[in-house]
């Protein structure tokens, strides 16, 4: 009775889904990029004929009438370029000699040029480390005394071909500083695991972000490296690149649903364009253990996004090759963990995941199990009340009839 009414408003507030559905419809219409249920995904390592200089991984996700190109590279700092085209036949062309030159403009192109509907990029520039001892405020900014950051452009990376896994559509960039006088990375490494998807789904490992065929996932993990302090917090400096002049808008989306990431009720998003045409999405949680249980979850804080000048950041050849030198960069910092609670120091391990894709970010909906339980839980007493009322009414009526006969 009251339950059913409650259910309706309950769902109404369950997620900001109507709004997002609307924007999904709006955004899919002009692009013709989205709504691709499945995509044919291929991973290709593009070799440099002149010698091993850096990894260039091309992920091509072909749908019925669109193609997404992800180009991941460890030339310079690790970076990714995302290009969406409105034809299933677009191709990536790489000119290595131009790409490796000081002016790489035009070294990377997606052809035909006029098919490009959306492009953006991310550059992972620095690994930050802070000393969090004597910091009582968990939300302090910066979260402690900073150590000199590691420049990811000065890391040496493994050969990506060795880690290519076509079954899971993934590859891992694993690196350590080229110059490591303190031997901090003697037994450790920083890894960027990239995974593409041919259809929507949800990985088994926390934070179990919902992905679609229009997105790919990056898992950053730091393992085995010795920290410079007893309670070191790590962070990552990330720069975004886009077509427009504005920075992507940052949004914290609160949801009621923490079924896939227990006790995490928030999704952080960066959205390109007024109507989202591209996104980065992550749960503000990192893990200090491989299995990623709730007892090893750390908060993950993102600083506000601010425009930055290209020369203040390490140069990424692939980004400059595609966007030119006038590209519009914005940067922000992610910090993993707080001075109290679990941290990297537990097992010298840290992992964090994000999703990069085109269109509007995927929205979690209540799982069928929850809906089923709710339907049963509210339906049963409701029916019982109804049935009971009916029986009593009939009973009452019959007994009054008897009385009238008497």
């Amino acid at each position: 009775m009251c339950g059913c009414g409650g259910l309706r408003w309950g769902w109404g507030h369950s997620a900001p889904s109507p709004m997002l559905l609307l924007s999904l419809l709006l955004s899919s219409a002009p692009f013709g990029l989205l709504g691709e249920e499945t995509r044919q995904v291929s991973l290709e390592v593009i070799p440099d004929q002149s010698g091993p200089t850096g990894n260039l991984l091309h992920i091509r996700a072909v749908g019925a009438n669109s193609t997404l190109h992800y180009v991941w590279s460890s030339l310079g700092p690790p970076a990714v370029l995302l290009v969406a085209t409105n034809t299933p036949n677009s191709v990536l062309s790489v000119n290595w000699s131009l790409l490796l030159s000081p002016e790489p403009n035009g070294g990377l192109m997606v052809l035909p040029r006029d098919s490009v509907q959306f492009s953006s990029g991310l550059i992972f520039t620095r690994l930050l480390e802070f000393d969090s001892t004597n910091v009582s405020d968990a939300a302090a900014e910066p979260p402690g005394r900073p150590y000199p950051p590691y420049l990811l452009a000065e890391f040496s990376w493994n050969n990506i071909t060795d880690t290519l896994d076509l079954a899971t559509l993934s590859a891992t960039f694993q690196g350590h500083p080229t110059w490591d006088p303190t031997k901090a990375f003697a037994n450790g490494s920083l890894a960027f695991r990239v995974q593409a998807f041919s259809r929507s789904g949800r990985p088994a490992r926390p934070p179990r972000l919902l992905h679609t065929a229009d997105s790919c996932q990056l898992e950053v993990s730091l393992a085995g490296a010795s920290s410079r302090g007893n309670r070191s917090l790590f962070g990552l400096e990330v720069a975004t690149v886009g077509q427009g002049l504005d920075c992507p808008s940052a949004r914290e989306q609160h949801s009621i649903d923490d079924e896939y990431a227990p006790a995490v009720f928030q999704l952080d998003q960066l959205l390109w364009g007024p109507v989202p045409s591209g996104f980065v999405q992550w749960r503000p949680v990192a893990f200090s253990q491989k299995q990623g249980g709730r007892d090893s979850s750390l908060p993950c804080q993102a600083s506000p996004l601010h425009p930055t000048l290209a020369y203040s950041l390490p140069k990424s050849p692939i980004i400059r090759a595609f966007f030119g030198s006038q590209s519009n960069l914005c940067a922000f910092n992610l910090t993993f963990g707080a001075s109290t609670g679990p941290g990297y120091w537990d097992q010298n391990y840290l992992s964090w995941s994000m999703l990069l894709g085109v269109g509007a970010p995927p929205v979690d909906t209540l799982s069928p199990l929850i809906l089923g339980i709710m339907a049963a839980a509210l339906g049963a007493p409701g029916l019982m009340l109804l049935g009971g009322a009916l029986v009593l009414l009939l009973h009452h009526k019959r007994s009054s009839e008897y009385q009238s006969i008497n």
Partner: protein
Amino acid sequence: MDEEDEEARALLAGGADEADPGAPAASRALPALCDPSRLAHRLLVLLLMCFLGFGSYFCYDNPAALQTQVKQDMQVNTTKFMLLYAWYSWPNVVLCFFGGFLIDRVFGIRWGTIIFSCFVCIGQVIFALGGIFNAFWLMEFGRFVFGIGGESLAVAQNTYAVSWFKGKELNLVFGLQLSMARIGSTVNMNLMGWLYSKVEASLGSAGHTTLGVTLMIGGLTCVLSLICALALAYLDQRAERILHKEQGKTGEVIKLTDVKDFSLPLWLIFVICVCYYVVVFPFIGLGKVFFTEKFGFSSQAASAINSIVYVISAPMSPVFGLLVDKTGKNIIWVLCAVAATLVSHMMLAFTMWNPWIAMCLLGLSYSLLACALWPMVAFVVPEHQLGTAYGFMQSIQNLGLAVISIIAGMILDTRGYLFLEVFFIACVSLSLLSVVLLYLVDRARGGNLNYSARQREEMKMSHTE
């Protein structure tokens, strides 16, 4: 916890015990405070009685107040954390039947109270030592010992109340004891986090030692309770000498074979009770993190809102008790309480509305349910089976709390708070189903459960005539 039992007794006692002639007045001239026949002296005794239970209520919810600290310092997940509550409940699955028996036949009220207080004290000390030595199993064992004392101490407290205040201010006394229990829980919720940070500051770092020391300091309340038990024992003996008053008895007769004679409505009441209480106490046990994570509350605010159920229930229990007494219609009140709880949990689960609304509603409905549900047992059981019925009800309630605490912790670790809330909603809904069924069964059998107060009065009159 079994304040509900007190609630039941409080509500029942009003009718049954008023015929007591009262103790003969002492003829010797003593100062009012020292004269057992005078009000001032009884108030002193009342104060002692209230503080007798304070320690155990304060320490019962220590884990909830220090949830994040316990989990961090002891490196346990939520499932293991909830075992701290489960271990409290296990001994009481059995002891609920024997608490009264032990007091009446074995120890006597005075020694019984002292012994149970000792169990509470020792249990809390073991619990704290578990923290200091970083041994979680020791903490669990501490909670087990604490549980042995805790519930039986509540029975002893009631027995003292009856023995001293029968036919005088008994209902008021029960109400005050109940309020004191709630105050104990509330103070704990809001004090322990602060205490932990103070200990942390003085020891220099957080860790299992800090946790242990904090719990040890919290254990001082148990020592206070033990002192009250000793003082009460002395005063009670003194009163016996001066007034020739008898030692208090619970008067409970437990016959386990009675269980087979329990009627369908009684079983339905049991189901309502178990399904209802498991969505209140385990939720409070896990609530603090829920309020900080989902609603962005600070730690202090989360403690405050987590204790609001207790805060509301302290003043509202007597009010609702009076309301139910005056109106009757117990099933309707129970139905309202359960439905309100359902709504409150749905708000917490599916909306981002300010949780104060939902928690206040939960507090009100919890108080209402306690007042309306427990007295119903007396209407469906013959008087000689009442002790067994209440013992059984408490016992399966403890069993339910123990089992659901563990399940709730497991659900939270793997599926998160939304799923946990949905699970709780399913439990409340089962409770609601039972209420409706109870109404129908009672209606069909022409039972008296849903009589208004006037109908009850008329029935009583016709019986006596």
